[in-house]
């Protein structure tokens, strides 16, 4: 059992342990899941360190490499006759995503310390969901990738359906169906890849060597990109996100918005762009237009929202728009920005939803107009919300700025295959979102936290408890660390994006420019 398999198995074992503890002992259940996720955090740190030892020396050679290089690889044949194997590996991109997920699940468990009703199933399902997510980020066999992808999506239904609030069945069903519709597109794309490559293998690294005919790429790329886009809240397919997040319990929407939506961006980059460069070039502009709408649409939509969770859901639609915008820019800065944005937005939304859960736990209302002046009563939460807000509108010093500046520069610098002026105008339109984001973040924050205390019995509310302080503290610290010292994350990621960029340049004819 290699290191990476442990990363996937640890949450699963914790889930089993939780299942076998008697339902009455909710405290035990919480402590077991906390210890499990805590241990996982340590394990992730150790893996990152090991990965860094292996990857650092090769960073230079990756500049010209055309094929991605996996580290800490585990390869066990599974269905030989079909070329399916249990293949785990890690490179810069998936390592950063694993770190993100590990942080989010740890803080997620902490943030749901108050869940009492059927706590056993809740934590078990949460851990199964995160096992699926780890599986996706670490697997490099398309079949295994798809399998974990669906394992990650399914517990959502029960988590939202049972512990949710408001129209929970409706939104749980809508969320699950739309995500599964996305995965339907994926299965078409993956099988297309498998058969057209004629190499009788699902191994991503080997499929990269096959050259897919342009006609195939023309329809396969959009299928896979939109399949992942549905999860990455691509414009017309994002409608599940506001409802889904609004009625999901705190930890679930933390995990979902923070991590699951990143599967979309990750998959689009890893499978769609990497394997189908020709298709990426044809469709790049189309998806850039779509994601520009995504960015502005999400931020404008968030301004007039009454419910805090819808407010955050729309903001995460806009931020996920950045991710896909970066991927569609098809150049080094764009894609690097996309991965950075995935990381930073994951932490940010995790923080937002944790805070909203805590505020809701106290004021029992999520309606912005009904709240006001909470800063006086709960300063810790107010400051964290302020930091989260500032990070989301791209204030330098937090990871938001690092990611957004990459995406804007990537968008502005364009690529040799798409018309430069259109791409620049799209980037300019997308840049306007920094103002609109500022408007809705400040509006929301001011109305909820600043100003006089609206409701007399708000005075009786307490500030953050220890578990809440730790979870919000960890998230804020991550935002700040990546913001102040971005080179930690950038060096990790850049080496593994180069192959994708080189493949784009190598495939087909490239215009002289750069």
């Amino acid at each position, binding site marked *: 059992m290699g290191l990476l398999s442990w990363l996937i198995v640890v949450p699963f074992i914790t889930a089993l342990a939780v299942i076998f503890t008697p339902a009455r002992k909710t405290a035990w259940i919480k402590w077991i899941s906390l210890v499990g996720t805590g241990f996982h955090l340590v394990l992730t740190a150790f893996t990152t360190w090991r990965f860094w030892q292996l990857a650092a020396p090769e960073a230079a050679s990756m500049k010209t490499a055309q094929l991605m290089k996996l580290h800490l690889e585990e390869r066990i044949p599974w269905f030989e006759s079909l070329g399916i194997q249990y293949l785990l590996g890690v490179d810069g991109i998936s390592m950063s995503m694993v770190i993100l997920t590990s942080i989010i699940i740890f803080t997620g468990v902490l943030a749901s310390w108050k869940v009492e009703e059927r706590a056993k199933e809740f934590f078990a399902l949460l851990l199964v969901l995160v096992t699926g997510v780890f599986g996706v980020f670490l697997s490099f066999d398309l079949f295994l990738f798809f399998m974990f992808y669906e394992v990650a999506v399914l517990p959502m239904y029960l988590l939202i359906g049972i512990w949710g609030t408001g129209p929970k069945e409706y939104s749980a069903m*809508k969320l699950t*169906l*739309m995500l599964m519709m996305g995965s339907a597109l994926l299965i078409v794309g993956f099988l297309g890849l498998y058969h057209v490559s004629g190499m009788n293998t699902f191994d991503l690294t080997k499929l990269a060597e096959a050259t897919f005919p342009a006609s195939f790429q023309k329809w396969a790329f959009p299928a896979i990109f939109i399949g992942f886009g549905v999860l990455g809240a691509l414009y*017309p397919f*994002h*409608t*599940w996100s*506001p*409802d889904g997040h609004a009625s999901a319990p705190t930890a679930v929407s933390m995990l979902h918005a923070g991590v699951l939506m990143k599967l979309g961006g990750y998959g689009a980059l890893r499978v769609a762009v990497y394997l189908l460069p020709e298709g990426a070039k044809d469709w790049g502009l189309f998806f850039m237009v779509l994601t520009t709408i995504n960015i502005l*649409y999400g931020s*404008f*939509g968030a*301004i*007039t*929202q009454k419910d805090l969770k819808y407010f955050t859901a*729309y903001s995460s639609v806009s931020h996920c728009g950045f991710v896909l915008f970066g991927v569609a820019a098809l150049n*080094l*800065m764009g894609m690097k920005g996309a991965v950075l944005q995935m990381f930073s937005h994951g932490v940010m939304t995790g923080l937002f939803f944790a805070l909203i859960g805590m505020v809701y736990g106290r004021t029992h209302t999520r309606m912005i107009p009904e709240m006001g*002046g909470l*800063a*006086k009563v709960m300063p810790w939460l107010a400051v964290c919300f302020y930091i989260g807000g*500032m990070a989301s*509108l*791209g*204030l*330098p*010093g937090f990871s938001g*700025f*690092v990611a957004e*500046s*990459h995406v*804007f*520069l990537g968008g*502005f*610098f364009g690529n040799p295959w798409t018309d430069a002026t259109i791409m620049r105008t799209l*980037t*300019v339109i997308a*840049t*306007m979102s*920094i*103002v609109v984001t*500022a*408007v809705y973040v*400040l*509006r929301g924050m*001011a109305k909820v*936290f*600043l*100003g*006089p205390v609206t409701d007399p019995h708000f005075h009786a509310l307490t500030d953050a408890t220890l578990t809440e302080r730790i979870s919000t503290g960890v998230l804020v610290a991550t935002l700040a660390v990546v913001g102040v010292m*971005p*080179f930690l994350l*950038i060096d990790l990621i*850049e080496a593994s994006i180069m192959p994708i960029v080189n493949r784009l340049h190598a495939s087909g004819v490239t215009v002289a420019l*750069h």
Partner: protein
Amino acid sequence: MEHELGFALRNAWLILAIPFFSFLVVGLFIRPRAPKLAGIVATLAVFASAGFAYALAVEYLSLGGHDGWKTIVPWSFEWLRFQEHLAVHIGVIVDPISVLLMVVVTTVSSLVHLYSLGYMHGEAGFGRYFTWLNLFTFSMLALVTAPNILQMYVAWELVGASSFCLIGYYFEKPSAVEASKKAFIVTRFADLGFLLGVLILGYFGYQIASEAGGSAQAFDFLFLTNPEVMGKFSALGAGLFGIPLLTLALLLVYMGGAGKSAMFPLHIWLPDAMEGPTPVSALIHAATMVVAGVYLVARLFPLFATSGDALLVVAYIGAFTSVFAAVIACTQDDIKRVLAYSTLSQLGYMMFALGVASFEHPLGYTASMFHLFTHAFFKALLFLGAGSVIHAVHSNEIWKMGGLKAKMPVTHATFAIATLAIAGIWPFAGFFSKDEILAAALGSGHTGIFTLGLMVAGLTAFYMSRIYFVTFWGKAKTEHASHAHESPWIMLIPLVILAVLSIGAGFVPFGEFVRFGAAHGEAHGINPMIAAAGTLAGVLGIGFAWLLYRDGLAERSGVIARALGGGYRLIRNKFYFDELYLFVTHKIIFRLVAAPIAWFDRHVVDGGVNLSGWSARVFGSAVSYLQTGQVQTYGSWFVGGAVLLLFSLWMLRA
């Protein structure tokens, strides 16, 4: 570097490190436990950084500038790498204007910290106030010492954020919250322009840098302002709507500057920013943050000069703002609002000074920096003086004050010095810097701007003397004013120091230190004719104000107000710009854009999904409706199906 750098220059990073670590230490550890201690530690830290700045300045000067001052970047490390020629370095640039700004910022900031110890005594968020003040000082220093445009942008945003916190310090007051939001959003809108400008510069800079190869970094000022790069930039040809690309980029960058320095269209946030505590206004909205725009233009002056017409725009906007603000200032009743508009007007001064400067007539560049230098001191003094008056009278309304000359002697004396300084009366600093600006304007042939400048000088003298007379002369108009007493000594020390600086600053031989281009250009001395005109305007203003308000009453000015009728009311309401701003944001953006999008998403896009769900259900029930229960219908479906199958097999066979 022929000879070894001094201690300060070698570890120049201390200038940034001290305030940053003190911010972290105070903010995270000291504030929650001991707010009082937090204040003291913060003030000490800023004093330390001030000391270090002076040491740096002395060492830099000792390097000697006989053949033009060298700009050196003693320390920088790669912070954020986008691409090979596109990396952002955090570092410290040392050249005349950055040393000047470092000195000014640290001095004013330390004095304000000292003053706040007294002013904020007994406030609820005492520790929080000092943390944000420390953060502001750090970000201002980072802005000033930025060796590349992106570090300046990073610091630019941090300055905006800390000013948001400081303006919104009294977060329980809705008006303060509103003001802080407005400030942040307006400056953020301006920063959008700045970012776009940076993107354009970065893109074309990258092209040039990648051709040049080596370690050239597209964002560095040294790279941007070196001659052949500027040549390549100006040769770039037309960009959007036919405007040459360089000018377009610079105008966008200037938009960021205009936002921060509250130039005409984006000035609406500065008067409302007075909601923050007065020391904050003194520091941020008088001396430091607002001059960031001027500093930006100064830093990119060579580029602006090459593009030519970008400078013209800067000049005209600067001039218009100074007149516009001066006119409004005459009608305001709130002492801090008056000072805010006066700052606006003086910033207009500095901007158009830069605007008139060019390669041939670089005097404007020096004049603007000189005015920035002197203005920082006397404007800070005015604000702190006003602060101690408000502290005593507990109100901002000048009509509630009066007769404080006797009760607050020190404040009165320092306030008088500052008023004379801003009015441009001879021994005081204002006279020298204003005179240089007027000389620069006249020298470079902008006579229109020169006359405007003179008029503004008069107006400035008038409204400053107006609030002076109404506040200090005549009888106490209210209960509070009657038994007001002098502020504690901790608030008075900074006033005295600033007063001394307001006088002394004028005599500093600025020409040798800050000048553009090696040539000595025009004689630095005072041009008697302009000096006389300026002083005359100032004296006229003061005299006219004396006439109207010498006994601190309003009835004589009421007569003029009624005579002006509608026009007066227009000016008094600040040309209704605030209402326009509210209309644009609430009516247009919220109601006509945001709400429809939210509605559209909820009904149309969501509707699409629900529709597909509904149609699936309808198709499902239609199919299950076919199950009528009649066996023979099934039979006929069966045989019909067989026939259909035959046809499809027959038709579709390969």
